[in-house]
């Protein structure tokens, strides 16, 4: 029998799919629905210290093969959001709390508060490409990535995942910095910095002008990132970007991901995407003689050093 379960830093997932941060996770109830739909874990919306409205609308542009979004990290702040996490926990799958902040102290503070809410791990959003002062600036400098991870690790005792940006010349350097900082796992990738302009309106469509590109369009960048990171660090890698079917997930797994996250796939496939991806992975395993996901992790590499 094929076995879809995976373990990441002690978190036991019944299957390797997780809900990516920022999608259907403003409310606990929605995360619950996603868990019921078959996700192996859910990552919360990225939460900050204070309530935040996010960017003015339009926040989304639908493209042929992906989305451009500039939500701008709307969130009610960690204190209010705790109640949502409590509700999400009822889904019976690990809940990973995503946080963002402007400096090490803020992030450490959030990590410790996040642990108190009862989440199973903390994900550091070091990579939001369209919120000034948060994420991208911190996330593209290896020294800062290392230091932020260090502070977060010190502030909590649950696993800390570092979510990295592809808007860099070397994502593997960022991953190594996170590893040095003590991160327990790497999540890659967040969105690519992009813009869409309406020629008729003569202006960028997004209220924030710049947004993050996600979906199938970025999958090759995500797969390449995971492939590079897998060779650069020893900690586990979680792959994300453009996954909406089993084959997409397998690309990431064979590139070296122990698990995957799905965001934009929910747009094209609905919350059924988690079940669908799992079924397709299982079918592939059956047909190709694999019995455990772990047998496939990183097999696209000539040899693991």
């Amino acid at each position, binding site marked *: 029998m094929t076995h879809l379960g995976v373990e990441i830093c002690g978190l036991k997932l019944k299957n390797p799919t997780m809900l990516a941060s*920022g*999608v*259907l*996770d*403003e*409310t606990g*109830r*929605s995360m*619950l*629905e996603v868990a019921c739909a078959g996700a192996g874990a859910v990552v919360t*919306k990225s939460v900050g210290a204070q*309530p*935040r*409205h*996010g960017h*003015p*609308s*339009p*926040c*989304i542009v*639908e493209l042929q093969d992906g*989305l451009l*979004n500039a*939500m701008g990290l*709307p*969130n*009610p*702040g960690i204190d*209010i*959001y705790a109640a949502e996490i409590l509700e999400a926990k009822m889904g019976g799958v690990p809940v990973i709390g995503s946080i963002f902040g402007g400096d090490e102290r803020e992030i450490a503070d959030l990590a410790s508060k996040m642990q108190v809410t009862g989440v199973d791990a903390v994900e550091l959003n070091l990579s939001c490409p369209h919120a000034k002062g948060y994420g991208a600036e911190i996330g593209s400098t290896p020294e800062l990535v290392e230091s932020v991870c260090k502070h977060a690790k010190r502030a909590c005792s649950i696993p800390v995942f570092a979510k990295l940006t592809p808007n860099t010349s070397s994502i593997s350097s960022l991953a190594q910095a996170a590893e040095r900082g003590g991160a327990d796992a790497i999540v890659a990738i967040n969105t690519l910095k992009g813009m869409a302009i*309406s020629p*008729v*309106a003569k*202006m960028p*469509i997004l*209220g924030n002008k710049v947004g993050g590109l996600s979906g199938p369009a970025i999958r090759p960048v995500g797969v390449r990132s995971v492939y590079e990171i897998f060779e650069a660090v020893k900690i586990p890698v979680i792959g994300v970007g453009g996954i909406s079917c089993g084959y997409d997930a397998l690309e990431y797994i064979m590139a070296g991901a122990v698990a995957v996250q799905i*965001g*934009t796939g*929910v*747009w094209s496939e*609905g919350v059924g995407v988690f079940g669908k991806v799992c079924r397709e992975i299982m079918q592939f395993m059956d047909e190709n003689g694999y019995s455990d996901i772990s047998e496939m992790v990183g097999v696209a590499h000539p040899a693991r050093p």
Partner: protein
Amino acid sequence: MFTIAEHTQETPSIKTIRFKETLSATPAQFVMVWVPGVDEFPMSASYTGHGFGITYQILGDGTRALASKEVGDRIGIRGPYGNGFVLHGSRVLVVAGGAGMAALGPFIEEAAAKGAAVDVVIGARTAEEILFEKRSMLAGGRIHISTDDGTKGLKGFATELASSLLDKERYDCMYACGPERMIVGLLKLATEKGIPIQASLERLMKCGIGICDSCALDGKHVCKDGPVFSETDLRAMAELGKTKLDHAGRKVPI
């Protein structure tokens, strides 16, 4: 971008824009309307197909900016999104509160064209704010009016008018769009009378496509699972008529 073909004042606070472009939508389906440089927000299709249009109440910055647009101006339209009203039976009761009539206008026409007998309750603040009375009449609907101030029809709420109609007649289904407390009232009536109801709900909408969670209502998403919900869904909603999410995702009272 769609080009404005006509821009008409329906009531002192409500205007209709008809576009040069064609867009087919089921009644109660909505589009995201982008007023460049200002905002983007959801609006029901008040006219569908050729001469597609929206009918909106001027409330804040976004709709104020929209109101100042002229014929020939272009605004962004994406959609249609969500589900729509489904005709059920041959004798239906339609209840609209204020701008809620925007989504119900095309439904009344569709239902009447399909041969259904349509009773229409239009509730408004005051006589001159009554929307689509003539349009509904022309479609073949039997019109009943209520105003909060009694300047036309029954002085009182649309729910009261609906209640008395429900006492007198037998309907196959009720269709509602308007303030949430009106919908809560109608849901109660529908339950008492044992008839089905379809109600179009409103929530803050940032994406319109089922991913941002800003329109969440007890795990359902108004933009994707709705905006139209039937009695089973409505009854299961603990938040209905009580709380909604604000821009920061905080639950605030309706």
